[in-house]
């Protein structure tokens, strides 16, 4: 099934491969960024919506 991608790209595999390459690079970059994030920073960020002085209105 996936063979047809390459078959039909006739001579234009460059587009496909370089596109994948760019994405892979970008994905790794984000991955590294994520791994380097500190735990308490993550915790702080994820609790941002809950930090408002909420009351019981409407619930």
């Amino acid at each position, binding site marked *: 099934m996936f063979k047809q991608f390459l078959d*039909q*790209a006739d001579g*234009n595999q460059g587009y*496909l491969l370089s*596109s994948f390459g760019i994405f892979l690079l*970008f*994905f790794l970059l984000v991955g590294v960024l*994520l791994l380097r994030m500190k735990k308490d920073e993550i915790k702080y960020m994820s609790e941002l*919506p809950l930090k408002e002085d909420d009351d019981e209105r*409407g619930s």
Partner: protein
Amino acid sequence: MTEQFHYDNKIVRNFALATIVWGIVGMTVGLLIAMQLFKPAMNMGSQYTTFGRIRPLHTNAVIFAFVGNAIFMGVYYSLQRLLKARMFSDALSKIHFWGWQLIIVATAITLPLGLTTSHEYAEMEWPIDIGITLIWVVFGINMFGTILKRREKHMYVAIWFYIATFVTVAVLHIVNSIELPISAFKSYYIYAGVQDALVQWWYGHNAVAFFLTTPYLGMMYYYLPKMADRPIYSYKLSILHFWSLIFIYIWAGPHHLLYTSLPSWAQSLGVAFSVMLIAPSWGGMINGLLTLRGAWDKVREDPKLKFMVVGITAYGMATFEGPMLALKQINAIAHYTDWIVAHVHVGALGWNGFLTFGILYWLIPRIYNTALYSKKLASFHFWIGTLGIIFYAVPLYFAGFTQGLMWKEFTPEGLLKYPNFLETVLQIVPMYVLRAIGGTLYLTGVIVMTYNLAKTMLAGKLVANEAAEAQALPKVYVAQGAEKKLHRILERKPMVFMVLSLIVILIGGMIEMMPTFTIKSNIPTISSVKPYTPLELQGRDIYIREGCVNCHSQMIRPFRSETERYGEYSKAGEFVYDHPFLWGSKRTGPDLQREGGKYGNAWHYNHLYDPQTMSPGSIMPPYEWLIEQKLDTTTTRAKINAMRTLGVPYENGFENKANRRLEEQALLISADLKQNNIKVKSDREIIAVIAYLQRLGTDIKAK
């Protein structure tokens, strides 16, 4: 230092009201066009209410009026709270609100009048396009202004989605709206044929991505934790899927053009990235659903959460189905059928609709400082809405498979089993009836919600300005030394962020579009393809005005089942003078790419006057007014000049004799009709339409 300030709830309320009102309008129009498909009389015999003209009204109303207002409602409420700041400017908020409603009203007036560019989900003519641009900029200034004066240093992930939405929609809208105006409400896209198709579907697909998806994911990341009273399942996942989503989405547009004349490498790229798209999409869905871990008991009792859960699940289903539909083998059957319509509505009714309803049920009581009027009615809304989605989608899936397979079926002798297209339509008409029932159920739910929310509003009182307090952020410019630099980077973060997401979304678009625009070999020219005659050009514009493209494609894919039925498959070089392209995306009627010469002029005349006389059982509405209305030839000169500016090789001075040529050709057609006992003046619109239809696909047709 603690600062006192007020959140602006009035603007949120206004957008909420607009969401509800336009939601009802847009869905009612949807129901009307759904009924037109099994009862042509519902076209009401008027040109202003025919399917071709009001189907764009439905799509634009639900996307930009219903969902659009819901986005602004969701953003204006959550942005203020996440940043601990009132919106940047009350005046800008007001201009944004009223400007957007004005755009909607202008759209609702112009589309039924037939003033359309024909680009799907961007049918509005150029003055409205400019209006959209201006109001979008107002929204952007208001949003970034708020971000800059924030009291919370960090930007929560929801805001990332809002920023990506703003940036990308701006880019999409501008690139897809580059038109050459020839009058106050008529313009031609500067792109032609294959390039125009690529731009349109790059835009169309990413309108789904950045108008229907990213802002809603942002809203999910804010409202779901609020409703469930627990943080999002994985913040890291939200970051990873955010960047992957906006990166990959932008590449996927060409999956709308599989097997067409688009260069195959671009198709392959589109398919590959569409398949990859499932990962970040499901990242979002999983993150949403797992946020409710340990809170499922709440879901059982709380209709709001039920809406959220079904909404997110619908997102998961639609984003699983999307990559599947992008596979060429599946696309070969599904494309042009109701399968696509079903797919879209699982996303629209389930994801966008249900999330909007859940948020409305949560938000309205809050800003009115009261409790929801009736939980039971909300629960009823949930169940009738869910039933509505099922009744909508299942029959259309069935219709899609059935028709897609019927189009491809051959007899043992090697002939098409259903050579008459109409036969495949009549087969699925009962499914259209069921779909309309589904739509009715869904709309009923919305009306019940409206009553419930109105009662809630009447019971409470709007807290127009909600008091809040927060620590001010330390002023950056007073910082000294090395610290100064660090703080300045932080302060600039939203701008850096915007630029970063802009770069990310530009990569895909550039790689896919640039070669198609710049490398000639991608669109081989065909010497026998000539520009349209003035009469054909006028006829083409009537074809655009009537929205024929909403039901008829002009793109024959290279399958035996299609070349047998319609003729030679379409070549890229045939469309080089088509500003805009009219390939279409749905075949409610047959393809018209090789219509030229297939029938006589008289057949077309009779068929347009009353389709049922020529094709008994046809669901096409009659177009009597084409016979009554005189063709406006005052525009011919401007049209020829505009086309020449866009690169169509009309000889110099041709505009001076264009109308003479037009009349000559019209007289020939009316004379031919007279021989068939049809008396019609040569200056009527129908003559131009017939001229255009008879030209279609004849340039490379084997004589």
